[in-house]
């Protein structure tokens, strides 16, 4: 990806302010004492005056609200009658306004894990903060292109008596339920986990900034260990890449919340909520079970395709073609992924109908699955050409067992030709044109 160049940088300061309840938040004050200046990078076509706190916010985005409500309903939350957008004081500069806009849409939900009920205390719709780029000597640089992107925060109740690994699995479960809406972003950092860790009767410590779910168990483990050794205070800490944590700021209190008066409260009518309930997507917890039982995908592959940006295409291809779903899933989560990563193939040049054509041809045995990478590369290079063109130009028409037998015969008759060597030479001549196991069978039978 090309690094985008900001069109300008705006420099700002922030100062402590009293909240609605008349108290100045300790976290806010603390940040103030750090005497920092904030530098906001502005990007063409991605930022407007709202993000630089130079225009009042527009109304709640209806699509974002609907998705947040879908997630809350999938998590069995009670939906509120009237929602109130709040300003949550955030004075570390990650919001140009000095606060994050946030609104509770659902309360008191639950999911089931290993037959137990896991409490979902609340689901909130928020604005994502600006991403930090650099911090040096009190000069903090943020990119504004993430600021204001709708973010759904899901809070669980206290998970007492679960192992760090189980907590990680619960987080995974919540993540795939959120993804059921198919409107969430993919990729590292698009689902983030904050975790509150406290040993029994100890103060609450919030750990932020885990980019990967896989870190969660380790962070919980190490943070719990730390808490048993050190004298601890209520605070917010940041996760380090190695799973340890570092001090970030004192834990902010409830007094940092006050109403966002620029956005009127939104009444959620019964009719509107019923409409959303009617069109709720299939929860992925169901989907994953269906992939495993009906489509016979192995557990790992089922999880991988759920996390893939090709999930929707995968489902449509499986519904329409007769190809083994495992092959389709594998193509997307491993073949395509490898081509992108290793050979920088521009997959998005391939139009959807070409993928249908690809799997239909495979179903009709016009080529063997080993030829897949070469054909995909060809389709990306020549988007106007079809699968038939690829097979012609790459000479990938499938070979019959007879043809392979002919080739093998010529090689096996040579002197000093052990089986492994012979198989290798045959494979190099027939690769992509016939199933490798079939070749193995043929050569084996001829050696005998």
């Amino acid at each position, binding site marked *: 990806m090309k690094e985008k160049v900001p069109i300008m940088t705006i420099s*700002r300061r922030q100062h402590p302010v009293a909240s609605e309840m008349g108290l100045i938040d300790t976290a806010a004050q603390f940040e103030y004492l750090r005497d920092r200046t904030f530098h906001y990078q502005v990007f063409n076509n991605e930022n407007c005056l709202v993000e630089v706190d130079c225009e009042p916010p527009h109304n709640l985005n209806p699509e974002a609200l609907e998705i947040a409500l879908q997630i809350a309903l999938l998590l069995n939350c009670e939906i509120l009658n*009237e929602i109130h957008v709040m300003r*949550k004081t955030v004075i570390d500069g990650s919001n140009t306004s000095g606060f994050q806009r946030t609104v509770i849409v659902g309360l008191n939900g639950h999911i089931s894990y290993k037959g137990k009920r896991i409490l979902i205390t609340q689901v909130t719709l928020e604005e994502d903060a600006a991403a930090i780029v650099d911090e040096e000597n009190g000069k903090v640089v943020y990119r504004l292109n993430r600021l204001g992107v709708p973010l759904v925060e899901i809070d669980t109740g206290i998970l007492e008596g679960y192992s760090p690994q189980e907590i990680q699995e619960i987080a995974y479960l919540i993540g795939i339920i959120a993804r059921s809406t198919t409107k969430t972003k993919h990729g590292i950092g698009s689902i983030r986990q904050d975790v509150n860790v406290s040993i029994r009767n100890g103060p609450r410590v919030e750990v932020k900034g885990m980019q990967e779910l896989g870190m969660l168990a380790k962070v919980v483990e190490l943070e719990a260990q730390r808490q048993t050794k050190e004298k601890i205070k209520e605070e917010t800490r940041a996760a380090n890449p190695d799973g340890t944590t570092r001090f970030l700021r004192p834990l902010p209190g409830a007094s940092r919340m006050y109403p966002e*008066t620029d956005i009127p409260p939104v009444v959620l009518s019964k009719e509107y909520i019923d409409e959303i309930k009617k069109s709720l997507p299939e929860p992925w917890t169901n989907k994953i079970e269906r992939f495993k039982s009906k489509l016979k995908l192995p557990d790992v592959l089922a999880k991988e395709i759920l996390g893939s940006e090709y999930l929707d295409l995968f489902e449509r291809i499986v519904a329409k073609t007769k190809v083994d779903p495992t092959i389709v899933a594998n193509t997307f989560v491993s073949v395509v992924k490898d081509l992108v990563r290793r050979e920088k193939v521009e997959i998005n040049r391939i139009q959807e109908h070409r993928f249908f054509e690809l799997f239909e041809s495979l179903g009709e045995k016009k080529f063997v699955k080993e030829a897949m990478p070469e054909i995909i590369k060809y389709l990306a290079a020549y988007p106007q050409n079809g699968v038939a063109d690829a097979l012609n130009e790459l000479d990938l028409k499938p070979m019959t067992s007879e043809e392979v037998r002919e080739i093998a015969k010529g090689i096996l008759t040579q002197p000093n030709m052990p089986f492994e060597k012979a198989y290798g030479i045959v494979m190099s001549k027939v690769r992509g044109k016939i199933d490798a196991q079939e070749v193995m069978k043929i050569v084996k039978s001829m050696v005998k």
Partner: protein
Amino acid sequence: MYSQDIESLLNAKKIKIGDKILVTKVNDEYAGILMPRIKLGDISSIVIKLSNGYNIGIKYDKDVKIRRLESGKPIRFKPAETVPRKDPEKPTVSILGCGGTIASRVEYTTGAVFPAFSPADLLLSFPELGDIANIKARKLFDLFSEDITAEHWKIIANEIIKEIQSGVDGVVLMHGTDTMHYTAAALSFMLRDLPVPVILVGAQRSSDRGSSDNLVNLVSAVVAAAQSSVAEVTVCMHGSMNDDFCYLHQATKVRKLHTSRRDAFQSVNVKPYAKIFYPDKKIEYLRNDYKLREKRTVKIDDKLNTNVALVYTYPGIKPEFIQSLRNFDGVVIAGTGLGHVPTNPTGDKFTQSLLPALRNLIHSNIPVVIAPQTIYGRLDLNIYEAGRMLNEIGVIGDGCDWLPEVALVKLMFVLGKTKDMDKVREMMLTNYAGEISERTEIS
């Protein structure tokens, strides 16, 4: 105010705003502090603040039960008690409050930002003001700037005089930004021979937020009031979208040119007098044609005739509209381009000339003043036929580069002294407070 049903229930149970309550709705329970009801949204929903700080609304119906858990303190702001210690080494600056965003708080009846913050509270919020000067702070009134009238300008002018007579080194006036340039212009005409700076200041973003421009603007204004050499009425506001400096604008040459940006105020046709850097608090002068700080006796000239109108011309404007202005004592027309209105010199069948209607006004001793709706640039009524005809019938303003709002305020000022048409013309064309510049600097 909540709906009648909720209010009666609260009264019956003696539950007050601020009490911690438990709301039960069938199987759901919500505990939180009862919040005041804002008008927007559903007034039949009970708003409570949960322990984590979030507000939620619960629709009240027959299934809803309310119970008080704890009595609360009433929710209100504690006014600051400032006992500033006077430092004889430091200059003294008087801050007068008229309301506006710079001194605003969240207001629950409308759900809007409301000026309800005394200047003394600001001193508590911005302790660095005390490093610059001894601060005297006083609230004149709490008004949205669009509600401020010429009567208020007179009160402000007289209160400023009182402060100056008490010997302060500068006066800062906190004012809503929407009409700040009108007040600034009015004070420029009304306050004569100022010995010290008089600076209007406001904020574009509400003071409840950590990012508000109120801090930089107010600190810069107090710096200018305490230290700058410009003994005139000026406006001190953000110079850019950054929090790096403010401009000190000449009051008759500044206008709000953006609805929401921090740098909404721009000097028009001239450079600002100075830049005030933040946080260094240094002043850099950009001009040298201002009146210097000097021992002088300030005078007030607060006779205004407010029976004047400011109207925009536009394509297809009806002469009847202009005729309907005959009950005013003077009219300012924001003309197009170099200062034009429809005059129809080619006799087009669709076009209606305003000339007869304007001539009637002038013949009835109602002065007609022209100003540019382009905002920037100078009027010239000698280039096109329309302009020449306007000149002929006696409209006032040819060659001027005044802002429409300044022309309006000046006409109030002039008509406060005379109704003689020749005298009005002479006075309107006399430069009293830098409202007319002779030449336009290239910028």
